[in-house]
């Protein structure tokens, strides 16, 4: 592997890392992304949340994310959104939203409002940026028109009745049914998410599927399906189905792994590579090397040999516990690459509430790296640990993205902001 000194090394290939890389590239930086795993997007709905609940103590749902953000930034300056500032949040979100709106997944939003998505459990999920394949999901709920939710025999990850029964009191025109796709899939193929998605990519399958479904539509003005409508060609698939069935068609996100989330992850990565950014996946960084008050290099393993790269600036976008950015022992939480300070309640009994789903959320979720306004992690005495190390994304302290419904927003905004701050440092300027 050639040795070179990058402008920016980004550790972490999830939403945070790729958004940061994209921004860095726009700024003309020589940037490389190294990641252990694909990040959390494959486990999300594919829609991007900005913020929908604030404050979490009262579970107050906020139809307008910007109003909520204005409040949050004022009351919680140490929240990642607070660190970036309202203006920074708006800029970052606008940049990424425009990119996704004009890209092949054709995301859409209403600038001032959160949108409500129908979920597989018949609950409503508030979010902000929605992929095209779920556009009609939002509209169908808003219209309350007669709608058919269709499941597949033997696909146990989605039961249309589960969703329909829970929404029926507010949406009497919602109906559930299922089709047996095995005849069309072929007997050797089980009705799994990946199989169905591959099938939907084929025009011939879509036609036969439409033939099966047409007689079942009845008076339905919308058709909802589990999120199996193809891979990267999903927009074509949806439009073709709409043409064949003459009703708007939408996806309902499934649990794990989630195709819409995977599509977004793949798109972001592919665009980065097209832009000339190297993305090394499946290659966990094992050590960061220090030189004075700077992080100078990253080391990761091959089979048993170590490799090394040097960088002017480093962004740590390694996520929380799931991604390995934070590690919880029995009584403390650590940041494994540099041993950065993470303050957690000393007794595990205080890490989680006594109920799983209750407000305001689990204290451990707010634990993470405390940073300065430049997004540099701080030592206990309040100075940045390294002059050229920034942190972004879920690893930051002071938020509870699961309860605020702000996960994507925090990733996008702090990734974007970290890249800008790193960009200002290029050439050794503080």
């Amino acid at each position: 592997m050639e040795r070179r000194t990058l402008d920016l090394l980004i550790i972490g290939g999830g939403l945070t890392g790729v958004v940061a890389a994209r921004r860095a590239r726009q700024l003309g930086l020589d940037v490389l992304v190294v990641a252990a795993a694909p990040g959390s997007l494959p486990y999300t709905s594919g829609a991007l949340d900005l913020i929908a609940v604030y404050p979490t103590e009262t579970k107050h749902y906020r139809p307008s994310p910007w109003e909520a953000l204005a409040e949050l930034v004022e009351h919680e300056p140490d929240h990642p959104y607070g660190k970036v500032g309202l203006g920074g949040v708006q800029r970052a979100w606008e940049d990424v939203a425009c990119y996704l709106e004009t890209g092949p997944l054709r995301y859409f939003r209403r600038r001032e409002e959160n949108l409500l998505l129908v979920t597989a459990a018949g609950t409503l999920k508030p979010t902000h940026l929605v992929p095209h394949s779920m556009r009609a999901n939002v509209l169908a709920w808003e219209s309350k028109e007669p709608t058919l939710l269709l499941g597949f025999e033997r696909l146990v990850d989605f039961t249309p009745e589960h969703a329909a029964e829970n929404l029926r009191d507010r949406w009497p025109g919602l109906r559930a049914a299922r089709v047996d796709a095995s005849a069309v899939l072929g007997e050797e193929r089980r009705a799994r998410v990946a199989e169905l998605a591959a099938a939907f990519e084929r025009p011939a399958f879509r036609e036969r599927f439409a033939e099966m479904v047409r007689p079942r539509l009845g008076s339905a003005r919308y058709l909802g399906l589990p999120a199996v409508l193809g891979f990267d060609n999903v927009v074509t698939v949806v439009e073709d189905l709409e043409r064949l069935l003459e009703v708007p068609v939408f996806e309902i996100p499934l649990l794990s792994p989630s195709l819409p989330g995977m599509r977004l992850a793949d798109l972001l990565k592919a665009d980065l590579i097209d832009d000339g950014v190297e993305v090394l996946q499946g290659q966990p960084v094992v050590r960061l090397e220090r030189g004075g008050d700077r992080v100078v290099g990253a080391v990761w393993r091959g089979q048993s040999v170590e490799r090394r790269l040097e960088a002017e600036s480093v962004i740590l976008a390694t996520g929380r516990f799931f991604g390995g950015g934070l590690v919880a022992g029995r009584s403390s939480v650590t940041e494994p690459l540099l041993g950065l300070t993470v303050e957690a309640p000393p007794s595990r009994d205080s890490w989680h509430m006594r109920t799983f789903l209750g407000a305001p959320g689990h204290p451990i979720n707010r634990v993470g790296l405390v940073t300065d306004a430049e997004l540099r992690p701080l030592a206990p005495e309040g100075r940045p640990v390294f002059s050229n190390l920034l942190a972004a994304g879920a690893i930051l302290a002071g938020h509870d993205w699961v309860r605020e419904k702000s996960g994507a927003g925090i990733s996008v905004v702090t990734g974007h902001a970290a890249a800008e701050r790193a960009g200002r440092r290029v050439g050794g300027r503080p």
Partner: protein
Amino acid sequence: MKLETQALVIGGGLTGAGVLRDLALRGVEAVLVERKDIDAGASGANHGLLHSGGRYAVNDPESARECVAENAILGRVAAGCVERTGGLFVALPGDPERYADDFMQAAGAVGLEARPLAAREALELEPRLHPGITTAIAVPDASINPFMTTVANLADAEERGARVLLHTQVTGMRREGDRVVQVTCLDSRTGREIVVEAGQVVSAAGPWVDRIGAMAGVEIPIAYSKGSLLITNSRLTDRVINRLRPPGDGDIIVPGETVTITGTTSIRVQNLDHLTTSAAEVDLLVDHASRMVPALADARFIRAYAGVRPLVASRSAEYSDRGLSRTFSVFDHEEDGLTNLATITGGKLTTYRLMAERVVDLVCGRLRVESPCRTAELPLPGSEEGAALDARERLDRLAAPPPGGEVICECEMVGRDRVDAIVRRLRRAGHPVDPNALRLRSRLGMGSCQGGFCGFRTVGLLYRDGHVAGHEGNETLIRFLERRWGGLRPVLWGDQLRQEQLLEAIYCGTLNIDGDL
């Protein structure tokens, strides 16, 4: 609703189930009421250990003798629920050297087969033992699945005409003279009141026997001793491992089919509700157990749980909890002026059958029923001759992906057909159908994700087949998730925390099930 029966059994743990079966086998018409689902007390919160008697040989020979006998009996009649793992008592440097000799001597005295082993041999058998063990003794400890055993007892009883009413709580008794003439119950699912008139009443309510007794105006002195246990993600030893020294905290490690269960503590509590396991308790258990099997220090634990042992506290002032005899007590309540109430409490899982036999002997005597007890001879359903599986076969049976149909629980390979079959049985018996009921009767939800994924799929199936409607399914799902939370919360570090973070992300993120929208 009024119900008349010869015998009423209160308590759906393993003791109650054993009593019901014994009564049914002796031809006594019987009804069992349980306020929750099966094994809601200590029967559902124990080690799953079928004692050889080794643990009690030195300090409690009476208990030890019972264990020796029952180990052999259950090994036969409950063979389908038992895995003959064998056990090792191991000594570490610093453990009293005399204890090994005392052990062997005591073993001889109680009829326990015990074989001393050199440390080297023990390590060959169990490579994960601490390399510094000094000596070991092999005994016929075994692993028993209490849920399967309870289900088998109840199934056999029902087959022979007994009735089982779950989610049916005893709310009061009416006593006239020397008899309990009425027992009032409440079906918590329907809100319906059921009045039972029974010839004889047996209270097998574990640590709740004092409350039941109070309803009949009798006082039963019970001390509550909570024991916490931990379950690992995977099976770390093949055999039961005990510490070769006087019994203490955290010195038992039991393989439970695909996992390892380790415990336990012994903490007096005043309250039977809302049992929790603190982080400190968990840490203590991990520290103690890892002295025998170092791998436990870094193991991933998937759940912590606690059960309460009822200790008959007649001499409570004189002994620590461990000193109180673990053998059982049968109260005939003649001193309390009653001729048709019996209480069975104390004891341990291993002696459930014997406990049942004793109290049913008493009850049958009062009913003038002369049939003998046959529970030591008649195999339980699923444990017939030749049904006993060796460890390999058993694991194969458990571990195999189901032959057809969708898989509902990936962690424990529970397939759609199995779920449907259990649902059918529950419906036929009039029991409520929910993910927890399925969990108790299969391994659904007992694996790494503790029901996180399969709970959702199961509720989908329930909606699909019309067992729930409207918001019921989501309410059930949330109850299931909150229930499992109790066991998860104490072990949320390392990978189990990662697991939980994934599930919280899915439920609160993708599904927003915590929202009120």
